[in-house]
């Protein structure tokens, strides 16, 4: 594991974690700290208060804009991000942007990349983006095709763990035990069942594409660095960004970043990167917490804590976190 944990920028008060830092040189600051950042997705969009996806999309695309010297085209799948950003007569996008369908964003992105290449405009880079439904479910076929052809597209999944646009239904990215509109908290195994779901970053790695990474809206420096790294590479690349959804998760709108942080600090969402199918780095946990600390603020998991609660289910989730920590070597330094 090459990626060091926690404090990466030493000696600068908040250098590794906060968005900006007046003490850092301009080159070491995040794109988001720059008043001249693109704001790829602009004010006036209709996302919920505290929307993690709106935030994640701006983080990722602004970074991609910097990495490409503003030579970027985005292709968007149907979903929350698309609906809240482009209701006629208003669009929030400040970059060239195309929405076609729910399940075809990777293929459309392939088409855009092909057009750019054939026109000799290799400087223009293409990002495809979708929510987890558009990525792991309905868009999976076209995504896998884009991967195996190694088309020159960075595909970004904004994972909020369900179909939030349509009213919070289960997707193959919904975690076990979570309540959704189609996995109600009734019956002997309330919420989403264990033993299902797709681990798309690992599936992406199995395509041996040059770059796969995960990130969250809680670690901007890490996310931006990964976008930048992705843009240094040609071919199919995949970035999976955890974006908490206050509506779907039943969390406070102010908790969006905190929950993303707890997801990584509990080990439930491993943040790592892989090149050519091999894990090359993982972001170590800095202040380890039990999964309960992450689960409790979310009403979709409330049934695990009401009354006598379901310590057995919490334990199973903890075991998943522990397995991630083991698999990716996420344990904090002192625990080694």
């Amino acid at each position, binding site marked *: 594991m090459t990626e060091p944990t926690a404090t990466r920028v030493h000696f600068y008060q908040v250098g590794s974690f906060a968005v900006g830092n007046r003490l850092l040189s301009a080159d070491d600051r995040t794109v988001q700290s720059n008043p001249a950042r693109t704001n790829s997705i602009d004010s006036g969009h209709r996302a919920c208060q505290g*929307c993690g996806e709106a*935030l994640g999309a701006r983080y990722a695309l602004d970074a991609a804009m910097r990495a490409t010297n503003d030579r970027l085209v985005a292709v968007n799948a149907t979903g929350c991000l698309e609906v809240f950003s482009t209701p006629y007569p208003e669009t929030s996008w400040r970059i060239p942007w195309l929405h076609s369908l729910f399940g075809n964003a990777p293929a459309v992105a392939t088409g855009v990349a092909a057009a750019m290449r054939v026109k000799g405009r290799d400087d223009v880079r293409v990002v495809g983006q979708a929510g987890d439904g558009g990525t792991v479910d309905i868009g999976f076929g076209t995504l896998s095709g884009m991967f195996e052809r190694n088309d020159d597209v960075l595909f970004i999944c904004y994972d909020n763990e369900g179909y939030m646009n349509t009213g919070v239904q289960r997707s193959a990215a919904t975690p076990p035990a979570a309540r959704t509109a189609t996995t109600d908290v009734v019956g002997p195994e309330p919420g989403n069942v264990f033993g299902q779901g797709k681990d798309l970053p690992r599936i992406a790695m199995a395509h041996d594409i040059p770059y796969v990474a995960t990130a969250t809206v809680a670690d*901007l420096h890490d996310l931006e660095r990964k976008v930048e790294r992705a843009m240094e590479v040609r071919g199919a690349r995949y970035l999976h960004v955890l974006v908490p959804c206050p509506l779907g998760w039943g969390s406070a709108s102010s908790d*969006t970043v905190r929950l993303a942080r707890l997801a990584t600090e509990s080990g439930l969402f491993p943040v790592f990167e892989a090149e050519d199918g091999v894990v090359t780095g993982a972001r170590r946990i800095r202040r380890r917490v039990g999964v309960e600390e992450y689960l409790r603020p979310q009403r979709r998991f409330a049934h695990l804590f009401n009354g006598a609660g379901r310590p057995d289910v919490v334990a199973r989730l903890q075991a998943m976190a522990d397995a991630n920590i083991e698999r990716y070597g996420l344990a904090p330094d002192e625990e080694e």
Partner: protein
Amino acid sequence: MERPFAITLDVGSSRANHTGSWRVERPVYVDRLPPCNDACPAGENIQRWLYHAESGDYENAWHTLVEENPLPAIMGRVCFHPCETACNRAQVDEAVGINAVERFLGDTALAHGWSLPAPGPATGRKVLVVGAGPAGLSAAYHLRRRGHAVRLVDSAPRLGGMLRYGIPAYRLPRDVLDAEIARIVNMGVEVGLNETVTDIAAAREAAGADAVFLAVGAQLGKRVSIPAGDSAKVIDAVSFLHQVADDDPPLLGRRVVVYGGGDTALDAARTAKRLGATDAVIVYRRNREKMPAHAEEVEQALGEGVTVRWLSTIERFEGERLVIEKMALNAEGFPEATGEFEELDADALVLALGQDTDLSLLAGSEVAVADGVVQVVDSMMTDVPGIFAGGDAAPSNRTATVAVGHGKRAARGIDAYLAGRVDERPARHALAEAGRLNTWYYADAPRTERPELERIRRQTNFEEVIGGLTEDNALFEARRCLSCGNCFECDNCFGVCPDNAVMKLGPGERYAFNYDFCKGCGICVAECPCGAIEMVPERI
């Protein structure tokens, strides 16, 4: 380009949709009082000067510091830094080494010859300051800044009061002391040395002063009655240290016993050690936990070979032998005699049992005195209009920093008095409690300790024990500051807003909310490291 209708839209058009209408609560920027500032007896704006130090702008940092305290090199050595005790960082790892950074700034200023602010335009009013210790010096400085003429008198031959005569040179080198005092005197302070004021009213009149500040300190060592033979050498610690400071140390012999548990006792024992005592023994009636001396001073003393007889009182001093009674702490933590006795060889006994103030100069005045100190109101004015008092002569816990704070408050009080105003202090901001911070964001950074002088060297000379920080270390230490309750422009709010509703106004200008678009989600509040944003209900 002519766009296809409706399906294709021009960029940025969503700015017509003012999502601020979604909001039921709005974020607002606030400034809160950092606990260090709150705890500083001198009223330093510590967070603010650290802010400048963080960027390496030491000169600006120092200028900010001396707005409140003109003696940073001194205070950076002798202050017992309640700021660090209050520091919220202690709840993350360890408190910020504020005191060390203060000293670094003070020393850097001396090295570079940075000047204190120029005196204010002359007001034509004059103030007599009696006593040139930290309170008097501070008052003189702040009065000069306000344009008042100052006459500073002291009964000693040199300025500095207890800074000079109570604090040993190994803690406060004399060149530092002299340099910082000189800087104040150079602001145009009229100095009268070897001048003992015996009648306050007469002195005020003689000086033609519109107001007086009494800062005479507590120079009298308390004595207790210990049966002692004629041959026994007994001296109080204040006198002992004063004589050492005057380069006229008394001969105490090889075995020195110091009686008491305060910082002065430690100073006396450590000084005795440096003067050649082989045994420097402190006798204290309670245990280490109950000792009023500051823990780090105790630690340093023990490291230098000073020993302590805990839970002991001195019964009598016979010849070269002290008789000590063992004590035990009762349930309330008070020492009680056990009836067990021990003997201890000693050539001299130094009494460090507290100090009293000599207030004979107030005889015949209306100034109220209680519990051996002058009674004052918030502006430091006594019952007599125009007569102010501070430092050890007023109610306080008698530290140099408190004295500096008193001097500043008195100067402000005097200024208001001379102008015929009521002295009104600006309302204090609400405290920046640790619970309001989001400490996740601060870099992992354990405290930088100052280098300590080799132990062996400390036992024989008066070289300064505690060294200063290098610039790197000082910078590092400054950057450990959490900036509690005060925006330090980390850009978090600017970054984490999903609606781009935070405007960055440029270096030093902080941020503003664009309420046209802010939906009131509160992420900026949750993710502000230093708790400088809060949500308030939306106006209707």
